């Protein structure tokens, strides 16, 4: 066993026992504690939990890597996944907190006085959450297999057991306090290597400034200028310019922002604070905590990209450092010496390029590429696990609450006892973990594609229904339900057609369909169109159907006033 592995075992064991300890200390005794942590979480604790909930394996592991290959085009993730919080804080969180229920389908079902609306919302919540959670389990497996050299499947199972333990036992209460710890672990693990590398490359300890600083080699050249030069030399487009069309960048950013605001596992966090005032403040603090990682990620992307090109481009394959061989072993890095000169040609031209790099390894391998000490490398492993586990737990809670609260209690067995509901919630969480683990071990080839779909679906379904429910008193159930249904179906159709190619002969046909994209918008960005369609359908149908009952209109007037929020409750 080498140094890195010893450190990894130590750090992972330490953090895992911390999470388990917290879970035992804060286990849930009532459904209210299980669903909304008793409703008494402080704004800061809630903000940290929200941030950990939100920053998944995708944010921690994949995002900086994707940006480092996409350059400017990667901005869609940065703006999309932070700008959504502005919508959340201004348009949703305070009012939903005032409404004071346990889940998002709860709001939809009560505001639109209809169990079919509730069913549609439950269906969307489950679909969004399951697709998302499978990706998290996969992330756990990858980290275990690379750093601890256990089998990927064993890694997934270890992750399942841990999440099962504290999500099932602790519910929202257990999750909230473990997420607070996980935020600290993951942000520390992300910042330490970033600061090290920033000092190494630019002499500036603040990565956000180092990114725009000069290279530390005495040439006085700006880092970004140097990277633009390296990129164009190898035939890639300029790092700071990107290659996606303007309309597509616009559409993807909008879909991600609106999708973020509509994701049930994020919204539900704002049900856990005491007052409306706290919900607003908590949203602001959550974004501040998230922004620490999101403004560092593009800097990491620039450092990693520059470092990688300088380390591998036109160098002898035999002189490559250890990390290169290690990652080749995982299949995420591959070298194919096409012209048999023993050197690595890394260029944009596919027929001449000899190196394929999976974006996921950029963050994980970055500390190794930069020759950082073993404990920093191990820290990254512990941080990625924290990111993946915290998000998985939050999603499992949405799954279990949707089943036990919205389906079992509100629709099928209305007179279920408090204890019975709690057990139903635990049972649903267990089944959820098992299904998620199954998909983590046998990932359907389209996991990544489906995660993008999750945002599109949330944008196309929940966001318009919730916003209209708050801001348009006269919005009725016919309008809201038909808007959600049309929005989701349109989004599904577009994804199936242009992402999976099922109407045109399968996956192979997908790249050929690009020129037929509607308005030149990719499936990732189409959620914004489906959202607009949802709004239009909802408003038009609303015009021709009866007004909502007076008592519903009074509820809407009531949620607009912040005072007297009271506790979240099930009736």
């Amino acid at each position, binding site marked *: 066993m080498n140094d890195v592995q010893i450190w990894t075992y130590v750090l992972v064991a330490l953090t895992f026992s911390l999470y388990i300890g917290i879970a035992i200390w804060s286990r849930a005794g009532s459904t209210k504690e299980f669903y909304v942590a008793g409703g008494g979480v402080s704004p800061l604790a809630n903000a940290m939990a929200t941030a950990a909930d939100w920053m998944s394996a995708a944010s921690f592991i994949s995002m900086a890597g994707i940006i480092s290959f996409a350059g400017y085009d990667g901005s869609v993730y940065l703006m999309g996944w932070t700008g959504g919080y502005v919508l959340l804080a201004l348009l949703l969180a305070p009012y939903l907190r005032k409404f004071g229920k346990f889940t998002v389908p709860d709001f939809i079902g009560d505001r639109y006085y209809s169990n079919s609306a509730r069913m549609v919302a439950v269906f969307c919540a489950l679909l969004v959450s399951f697709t998302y959670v499978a990706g998290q389990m996969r992330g756990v497996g990858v980290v275990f297999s690379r750093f601890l050299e256990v089998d990927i499947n064993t890694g997934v199972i270890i992750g399942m057991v841990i999440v099962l333990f504290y999500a099932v036992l602790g519910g929202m209460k257990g999750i909230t306090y473990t997420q607070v710890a996980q935020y600290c672990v993951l942000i520390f693990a992300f910042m330490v290597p970033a600061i090290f590398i920033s000092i190494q490359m630019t002499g500036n300890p603040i990565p956000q*400034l180092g990114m725009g600083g000069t290279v530390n080699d005495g040439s006085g050249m700006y880092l970004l200028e140097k990277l633009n030069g390296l990129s164009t030399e190898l035939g890639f487009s300029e790092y700071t310019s990107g290659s996606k069309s303007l309309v597509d960048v616009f559409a993807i950013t909008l879909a991600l922002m609106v999708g973020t605001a509509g994701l049930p596992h994020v919204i539900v966090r704002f049900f856990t604070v005491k007052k409306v005032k706290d919900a607003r403040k908590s949203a602001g603090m959550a974004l501040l905590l998230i922004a620490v990682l999101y403004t560092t990620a593009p800097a990491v992307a620039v450092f990693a990209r520059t470092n990688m090109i300088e380390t591998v481009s036109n160098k002898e394959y035999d002189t490559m450092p250890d990390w290169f061989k290690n990652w080749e072993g995982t299949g995420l890095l591959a070298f194919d010496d096409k012209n048999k000169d023993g050197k690595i040609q890394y260029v944009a031209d596919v027929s001449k390029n000899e190196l394929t790099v999976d974006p996921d390894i950029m963050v994980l391998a970055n500390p190794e590429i930069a020759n950082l000490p073993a404990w920093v490398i191990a820290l990254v492993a512990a941080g990625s696990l924290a990111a993946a586990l915290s998000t998985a737990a939050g999603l499992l809670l949405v799954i279990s609450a949707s089943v036990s609260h919205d389906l079992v209690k509100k629709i099928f067995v209305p007179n279920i006892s408090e204890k019975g509901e709690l057990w139903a919630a635990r049972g649903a969480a267990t089944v959820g973990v098992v299904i998620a683990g199954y998909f983590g071990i046998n990932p359907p080839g389209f996991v990544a594609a489906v995660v993008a779909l999750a945002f599109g679906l949330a944008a196309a379904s929940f966001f318009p229904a919730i916003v209209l429910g708050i801001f348009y008193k006269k919005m009725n159930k016919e309008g809201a339900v038909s808007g959600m249904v049309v929005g989701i179906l349109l989004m599904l159709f577009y994804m199936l057609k242009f992402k999976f190619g099922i109407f045109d002969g399968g996956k192979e046909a997908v790249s050929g369909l690009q020129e037929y994209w509607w308005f030149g918008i990719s499936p990732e960005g189409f959620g914004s169109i489906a959202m607009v369609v949802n709004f239009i359908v909802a408003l038009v149908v609303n015009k021709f159907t009866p007004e909502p009952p007076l008592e519903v209109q009074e509820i809407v007037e009531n949620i607009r006033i912040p005072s007297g929020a009271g506790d979240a409750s099930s009736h």
Partner: protein
Amino acid sequence: MSEKQKKASAYWKENVRYLFILLAIWFGVSYGAGIMFKDALNTISLGGFKLGFWFAQQGSIYVFVILIFVYVRLMNKLDKKYGYDE
């Protein structure tokens, strides 16, 4: 309309006005400076950054954070003005 309802709708009107102003800024820094006008802004440099690129990958995020805190302040004041704070 009762006195209570009048107060509630006046409060709501001011709230919605704040939302329009804040969301206009939200739109301006991201979709405006970061996307639609980034090529024009890229001709200006901010240290080693081209300005449009900086807005897309850094500036817009800073502004988002500030916007929410400004909103929190404005709403807390508004709640006090109408006696809705607790």
